């Protein structure tokens, strides 16, 4: 009898959960926060990986094969996810685009073509880097988990409330502690940060990439070096997956400080959850600008 109970318990643990796959670690972390022990979640892209380009490996299809839900970033950032989902032959999976409720920034107007670099037709897709958008993502995730597992709806709602409470509290705290970052000018490597900058009042003056996805030329680097000197720009920030080579070269010619930020959960040490992602990035920036809070 005891053995039977044990087997049933194991089966309920294995099969009684909502199986979720996400494109990125940020979405996976929010799913974990809302679903708790009632979900299993796997992210396809690693935190330190560029989410624009993920090589579609057949093993990803196996991860998606038995999933109930797939949460994608959308806005053509994780275009590769479609190939994985199709290849998984999973007929019952629900694919959820987490960008639907987001107020999108930088939607291009006019003709969009490859001369503009790797530009996204539906706007800048790095919306999870505004913590307020984390609320919208969490709300959508809670709805979909509830639909998949209605018997745990109360629990998902409780977890959503707790997540929102923690996030709201953290945002207030960050806006207070890191208020000195507001108005600070910096250069980013790639245009991943408009949502983040908008939330925390940072002023982006330039990108190392001349156009999205295009490696900076020597002429562009020269212009940036001149601009850093003339405008007294203090910091260059780049995503964790970019090489240090270009920022370090510029730093060697100027007094600019170079930092790496976490574009996703798990990208760098300390960014081990959605909330810690912001805490880590803000701490790094405030240290670089010399406006650390006591």
């Amino acid at each position, binding site marked *: 009898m005891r053995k039977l109970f044990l087997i049933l318990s194991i089966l309920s643990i294995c099969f009684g959960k909502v199986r979720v796959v996400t494109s990125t670690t940020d979405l996976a972390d929010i799913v974990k926060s809302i679903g708790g022990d009632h979900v299993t979640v796997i992210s396809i892209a*690693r935190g*330190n*990986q*560029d989410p624009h*380009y993920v*090589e579609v*490996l*057949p*093993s990803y*299809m*196996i991860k998606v*094969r038995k999933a109930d839900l797939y949460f994608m970033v959308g806005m053509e950032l994780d275009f590769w996810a479609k190939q994985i989902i*199709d*290849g*998984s*032959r*999973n*007929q019952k999976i629900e694919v959820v685009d987490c960008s639907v409720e987001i107020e999108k920034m930088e939607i291009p107007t006019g003709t969009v073509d*490859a001369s503009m670099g*790797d530009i996204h037709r539906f706007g800048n897709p790095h919306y999870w880097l505004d913590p307020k958008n984390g609320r919208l993502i969490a709300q959508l995730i809670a709805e979909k988990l509830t639909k998949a597992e209605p018997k745990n709806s109360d629990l998902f709602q409780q977890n959503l409330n707790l997540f929102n409470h923690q996030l709201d509290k953290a945002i207030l705290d960050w806006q207070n502690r890191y208020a000195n970052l507001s108005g600070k000018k910096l250069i980013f490597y790639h245009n991943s940060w408009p949502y983040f900058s908008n939330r925390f009042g940072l002023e982006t003056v330039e990108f190392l990439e001349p156009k999205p*996805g*295009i*490696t900076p030329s020597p002429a562009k680097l020269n212009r940036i070096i001149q601009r850093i000197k003339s405008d007294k720009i203090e910091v260059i920030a780049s995503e964790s*997956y970019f*090489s240090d080579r270009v920022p370090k070269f510029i730093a060697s010619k100027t007094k600019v400080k170079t930092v790496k930020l976490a574009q996703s959960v798990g990208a760098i040490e300390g960014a081990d959850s959605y909330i810690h992602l912001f805490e880590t990035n803000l701490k790094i920036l405030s240290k670089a600008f010399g406006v650390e809070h006591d």
Partner: protein
Amino acid sequence: MLQKLVGGLILSGFLIGQTTANPQFSLVGDLVMDHLQKDPNLYSSGIEIAVQGYVNPFARSDVYLHKHNDDSPIELEEAVITVERGLPFGLGLRAGKFRPDLGKINKDHAHLFPFIEAPKGISMVLGEEFYTATGLEVNWLMPLPWYSNLSIGYFDTGISGQDDGKDESGYNDHDHEGGDSNDGHIDEEHHDGEKQPKGSSARWSHFIDLNEVNHFEFGTSYYVDHEKSFGGADFKYKWRPNKYRSLTLQGEVIQFELSDKHEEKTVHPKEVLTAGYLLVNFQFNKAWNVGVMGDFWQFELADIHSMDPSIFIGFSPVEESAVLRIRIGQVANDHEGHDKKHLKTTAQLIWSLGPHKPHRY
């Protein structure tokens, strides 16, 4: 009959789809310069046109057209409907004219190859532009903890192998009078009126994550028609610690049991052609990759063999929308036989419009 069935399936797929969304259009063009003994040759293989899109929630369609850089009409390379969702038991289906899942590189378009030219030995088995045929292929994603896929296909035309008027094997090229019976462009009938044999193919492939950055895949393939058959095995190991750094080790070997009448060339009735290649490709930053390849083939009874090494370099300044490749390799001169080797240098500029690209290997 089979062609009508396949044509009907494709047409019904389009009609049922009734999509108002436009498919994706892509163009791939190239410029090639090669140098072998004489003056350099400068040419283009023409334009590949790709039209791709979803037919309905269960199926997508891919159509590839090729306009060669000459007076020939536009050629239909592939027109295939792929059903990946909606079928039970992890089954998938491809129907139409397409490259069967046979061996490691038969499905790949030539502009994907970092080594520019397809391995000679493999071309001797699959044809200069590899094996393309009209038919059906069922794929089964097996319910195993790792990716394991079994493909079985049936096609209206078989592999005729190399038939470009060049006979590097050293075997006599008897009643061959030109024409283009295969290498991807398959006539309905041989020149002597004999019907092309129906071909059947099977492939069982596996993909295993050794860890987050190391992957290993291997597969076995088998092909048979009423004249000939071959079996093959392949593997690929890839280490990819980040987006712009990777090491690929890949190899493939095929053993082809020829009939006494193989592509209008007289061969011993028990002749076996063994062909294969081994390559190492290292991508060391965003733009550059370099590799080496050994390409070999052997007719066992005739004791004719060749082993041709080459090195290749690739430069992709802006992702994969424009790629410059250079290959320096040893080749046999078509007119001097297999034992006279020369160094051939090839440079290829390849560019693309749209999502179908010469993406990284």
